[in-house]
């Protein structure tokens, strides 16, 4: 399957969604997005980190130190209450826009 560019700003939304299921560390988040998108979305794995920093700054995500499966010290990210609210907002916006786009494409 050809890899496509992710629409800008959607990475944050994906990260928040992924974290809804529970705290994960950076690599785990990347792996999950990768798996769930079935390889469609092409994203530099590293660009996850700036996005995580932005989420931390906004307070939608909080970080905590823990240990990984391999016994290494690693940072776990979890969704905050504000983050949950933000996710709901973004999902709503996204769906609204998608519906509008689809409506135009179908009938125009």
């Amino acid at each position: 399957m050809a890899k496509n560019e992710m629409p800008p700003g959607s990475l944050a939304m994906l990260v928040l969604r992924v974290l809804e299921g529970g705290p994960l560390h950076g690599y785990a988040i990347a792996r999950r997005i990768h798996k769930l998108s079935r390889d469609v979305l092409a994203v530099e794995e590293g660009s996850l980190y700036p996005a995580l920093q932005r989420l931390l700054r906004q307070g939608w995500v909080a970080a905590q130190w823990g240990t990984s499966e391999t016994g290494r010290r690693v940072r776990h990210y979890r969704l905050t209450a504000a983050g949950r609210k933000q996710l709901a907002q973004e999902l709503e916006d996204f769906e609204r826009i998608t519906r509008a786009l689809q409506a135009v494409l179908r009938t125009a």
Partner: protein
Amino acid sequence: MIELLRRLRYLVTRRRQERELEDEMEFHREMMAREGRAASFGNTLRLREDSRDAWGWLWLEQLAQDLAYGVRVLRRTPVFTISAVLILALGIGVNLAAFHVFNVAVFRPLPVRDPDTIVRFIRQSPQMFSDGVSYPVLAYVEEHSSALAAVLGSTSLSVVFGRESGEEVRVKFVTANYFHELGAVPARGRLLDESTAAGNDPVVVLSHGFWQRKLGGDSSSVSATVYLNRKPATVIGVVSEEFIGLDPSPTDLWLLVRQVPYFVEGSTLLTDFHAGSMTLYGRMKPGMSPQATEEALLPLMQELHRQQPDAVLEGEKLAAHPGAYLAALDLDRARPEEMALAAMAGLLMLLILGVACANLGNLQMARTVAREREIAIRSALGAGGARITRQLFTESLLLAAMGTLVGMALSATGFRVLVTMIDASGFFLFALDYRVFLFAFAIAFLATLLFGLAPAVRATRPIRSFRRPGRVFIAAQIAASCVLLIVAGLLIRSMQQALGQNLGFEFDRVIAIDPRMDSHGFQPAEASAYWDSLRAQLQSVPGVESTALCTYAPFGTRTSIYTNRERTYTAYSSHVDPGYFFTLAIPLLSGRNFAPGEKNAVIVGEKLARIRWPGENPLGKPWSKGGPVVVGVAAPARTVGASDAESTEIYFPLRASDQSNGILLVRTAVPPETVLPQIRALVESQDRRLIPSVSLLKNDFYLRLEASEQAARVVSALGILAALLAAAGVYGQVCYSVAQRQKEIGVRVALGARPSNVVGLVLRQFYGPFGVGALIGIGIAAGVSVVLRRELYGLSHLDPASYAGAVGLLLVLAVLAALAPAQRALRVDPLEVLRHE
């Protein structure tokens, strides 16, 4: 808000965060490798940078980088840095000193308790206003008014200090509550208060300065006896150094106003409703505004008018003005000429800054060109145009900051110099308050914009040479220097004019005798007898040619001015006896002199006659309806408004009532210094109650010139400074130009160009800027000098000699500055230069 806290936490723990992120990304990579996934991690460095930027502190980091870089760059070229800082310090320092004087005069309250509740009262009525209030009115207000928390008054009279021959000292007579109400503290002994007033012993308080100067700061001064107006008084204390009362004019001694009759024999100050010499102050009750206080006092004034209809006029009120500020921005009372002069002074200061900045701007441009490589490399490494511009601008800010610091130190000295010139008291202390800092900050920023912005912006564009901005900067410097030099020239020439000039009357050999009989309560008959006796004795002194009585002495500070509604003339008036014109050698152009005892006559100055009755013969015409008739026209004689070339005169005959406040003028055939001691002895022996002042008119004249002289000196210094800066700028520019065009010059010389051609080639690009700059400078100076007209002693503000002199001087300086490097151009060896190709 919480987000800001998060961001601040990040800022503080920056380094740790970076390390942790690095670890995380390292771990991520390891995991990817372990699971055999294609590594598409991305550019680690860029990702780390992006992560950092996410926190919004990029601007701070960049600023820190720019500053550190700027410091390094400036350290590498110490000569440039030091000269730039000095140039800026001069320009900024001058402005700071001037602002400081303004700040202290206008904003700083006098050192008294609760300055904002103190008001000063002016008598105001539909027909007139007057600064002075009579003592009985003051006493009445104090006794009957509940509108004020306290009533204060002071008056200055001239008093002679010393047992036998005395010198005049500056004395203030004050109400008993003065010191206490204003919160003054004694440095020694105690101060005047109600209890000292209650006792009848004559007491005096010394000012700190007087105590140090005259009595050597001796502690035994307290309770010593001193002689004032030949009357003994006991010193009860010395007031502290900072105290100057409510009047900035320096005071040597303080006395109780209740004791005036003791010191000034026969004085009616305490009882005369018509003597208006007290300055009345009050402290407002808490919560009351000045307007409310004025209203509360109205019924009092109305009652006073009923009791004394001549002394207190109909509709008269006491208008309240801020009392504890030197020069409160009282805009309705400020005269437009004073404001204009102040504005002009400010402009001149800014011009110096302008020259400094233009100079520096050129230097910065030259450096930018020299740094072409460095900028190109930074550009190649990814710095945007804006980034580079910002960094260069930050360098300029650094220079401005350093220049401001040094400038503040310089301005402290400059301020002290200015203050000693004005002879101000200890009030004008240099103390930094927030306003000065704000001004310094604003000036520094302005300066940076002027000299730093253009070079910073141009640095990012491909630079061939910076001919045009360089020329603009030179033109600006020439213009600014021109203005300063022209104004200086005008002031200097007007001084020459004043000294060499014929003011229209003889003052070199005239002595003025002022016994101030009115303050001693002399009635006209007594005064007349005094004068008759004195004049008879004076006539018998060898060397005395003639004497005359008048009410306002030439070069005096008292005067009376007549003008009409359209203000087409300003006529200084005086009441004179018939001998006046002969004594001062003022010719009568037509008509005749006053006859002795004549009452209904007036003699007008020639200019006044022309304005009032153009084209007609003024003789026989009435001055005002039913008023005195013109009997003569006098040649112009600027006895009072010496510097004001627009003024004219009007003379009235001496009245009987003028005898008591008259001044005697004595003209001598010999140099007046030779007969002065004899005359002085004669005058003093005439009546032991009086302490007359005897002075040479020419000394009074020089005193009045002093102020103008100082102004001329200051502006000349500034002008020379600016011109030197401009010359230095020209020198730098020519050097640079020669360096730029080395190859061209080499080729031309090789092809046989003559030395004059080469020099001409180099200098040609400066003719334009110099010409334009000079023209602009002349234009600005012509406009600005209109403000000076009143002070120029008759010199036209467009005086060609001043303008030509200023431009000429500047031209000479510029040519000298340009020739040196131009000469060096001639020594360029064509072979050397061509080899460098």
